[in-house]
């Protein structure tokens, strides 16, 4: 859906909302960052997961024979700007402006909309930083007169911790971890992991010859790449399949969706089954809930959803979204964010840097208030 021109009272209301948020985020000590709308496509889009990459508006640069794109979000551009400051810096940034996304056909969703947000890097007190960002957005909504939103939280480190605790070879764990954001593929891989490998045993000394005879070398993958993988697959023939009760454990946990305190109790019940101890996870979640409670977030309106965040590739820890009261799924969320430490290594940091942030969509807030 293309945006309509805006004028008069609508424009004044949006201007006001954006300046209220700018002031609100600046008050928290965040540095104001102005970012370009247009980036070189290759460099930027390779950093995103497939979903956002496919949804970016890409077009040829008439000047250089390369492709350009409109920014599909702020997280990656802000993180890249932070990288220029140095990954070892502790910093927080605030930003605002439009983002641009192609939308699936038939869905009446805007292809451009405003975001105003905050990103924090390098905070060693992880829970404090997460709750800090959450509070910033929660209070930001309140500054716009949107009170008592519906809150959904999740924590992607939980399924990852379970994956780490299951008995399986490292290569299987790695592919499951990498495909966590694609539930169908994840399920397929989990099923494969429970059945014995079908790879054939390969005699090592004839391999190069067999690959050579199969066809001319085209593309940038080499003969060695092929033979190495064949040997690895043959080696995986002896892998013990994942035990069904362990595979089911992941499912049981991912199905948890309940008021936050009840979710904690469900996790406690599951802990210890199939030989997997969840106590560290439970402790972190309990601490985070405690911190949210202390910050004045009514726990009765907070739902914990263990699968939440599976459609947002770069998040890998705490995730949250805030929706208008009484309209949990009719409209897009008003605000949302989360932790994305792992992505910092993709952007060039030698080790994962603590990174957490989130955005408010002022237009969606105004619509919810109207």
């Amino acid at each position, binding site marked *: 859906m293309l945006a309509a021109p805006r004028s008069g009272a609508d424009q004044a209301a949006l201007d006001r909302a954006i300046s209220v948020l700018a002031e609100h985020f600046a008050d928290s000590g965040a540095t104001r960052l102005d970012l370009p709308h247009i980036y070189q496509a290759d460099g930027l889009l390779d950093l995103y997961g497939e979903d956002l990459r496919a949804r970016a508006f890409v077009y040829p640069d008439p000047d250089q024979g390369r492709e350009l794109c409109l920014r599909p979000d702020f997280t990656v551009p802000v993180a890249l700007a932070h990288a220029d400051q140095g990954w070892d810096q502790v910093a927080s940034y605030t930003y605002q402006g439009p983002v641009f996304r192609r939308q699936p056909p038939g869905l009446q969703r805007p292809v451009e909309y405003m975001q105003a947000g905050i990103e924090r890097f390098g905070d060693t007190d992880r829970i404090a930083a997460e709750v800090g960002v959450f509070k910033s957005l929660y209070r930001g909504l309140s500054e716009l007169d949107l009170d008592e939103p519906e809150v959904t939280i999740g924590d992607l480190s939980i399924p990852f911790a379970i994956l780490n605790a299951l008995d399986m070879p490292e290569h299987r764990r790695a592919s499951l971890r990498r495909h966590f954001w*694609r539930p169908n*593929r994840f399920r397929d891989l989990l099923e494969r992991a429970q059945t014995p490998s079908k790879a054939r045993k390969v005699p090592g000394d004839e391999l190069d010859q067999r690959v050579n005879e199969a066809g*001319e070398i*085209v593309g940038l993958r080499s003969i060695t790449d092929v033979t190495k993988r064949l040997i690895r697959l043959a080696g995986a023939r002896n892998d013990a399949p994942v035990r069904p009760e362990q595979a089911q454990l992941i499912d049981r946990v991912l199905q948890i969706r309940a008021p936050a305190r009840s979710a904690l109790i469900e996790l406690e019940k599951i802990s210890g089954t199939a030989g997997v101890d969840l106590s560290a996870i439970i402790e972190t979640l309990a601490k985070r809930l405690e911190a949210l409670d202390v910050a004045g977030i009514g726990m009765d309106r907070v739902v914990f959803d263990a699968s939440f965040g599976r459609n947002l590739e770069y998040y890998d820890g705490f995730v949250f979204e805030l929706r208008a009261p009484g309209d949990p799924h009719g409209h897009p969320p008003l605000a949302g964010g989360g932790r994305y430490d792992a992505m910092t290594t993709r952007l060039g940091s030698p080790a994962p840097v603590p990174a957490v942030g989130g955005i408010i969509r002022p237009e969606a807030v105004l619509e919810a208030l109207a």
Partner: protein
Amino acid sequence: MSALTIGLPSKGRLQEDTIAWFAERGLEIVRDGTEREYSASVKGFGDVTVQLLSAGEIPRELAAGRIHMGVTGRDLIHERIPNLEAVIDMRFAMGFGHADLIVAVPAFWIDVVDMHDLDEVAHDFREAHGYPLRIATKYHNLARQFLNEKGVAEYRLVDSQGATEAAPKNLNAEAIIDITSSGETLRANHLKMLEDGLILASEAMLCLSRSAEWDGVSSETKTRISDQLGIDRIEPT
């Protein structure tokens, strides 16, 4: 009354087969002027206009309602018009122009037989090279949709509007997504199809535009054309 406008492919085998198909049904397509002029008419039908268009543009012309009827490949319609049900009535398959849209990789990749392998290899490739595995295609939408369904994530599409099979040989891509009919061009370019790499079986389709202005066309013309084509009603349903 306004003319009924038909869009037909402007060249090649697809055009020949289309003209023969219409001729078998008593509709003789006659080119106006010289070979180089891209318009034609139907003998004996004064109020039918034929536009000779690139097969790739026919879906767009149908969607925009600038032509009432058109012939093009199923692959091109799905690729160009994501929300096609709303705008195009793919009335029937014409029985020629068969071709498959497929995923192909170098034949020497004997460790890769299906999409599951391709995904693993794509990941290893990115780790090794620092950028995603490249897949050459002109079918960007269908490619993305299929790779997404199969859970292949770490790739980059490289636009290729022709001679796509040569992209790996020219080191512009590692794999391709393209149309093949016999597989000969794939083999000649040292490629093979993946076992579960069939994206779409395509053929020539007679399509009706839902957005064209049908009311302006005389009912006599509509009846005569539908009688010749052997269909109930020429307007889209």
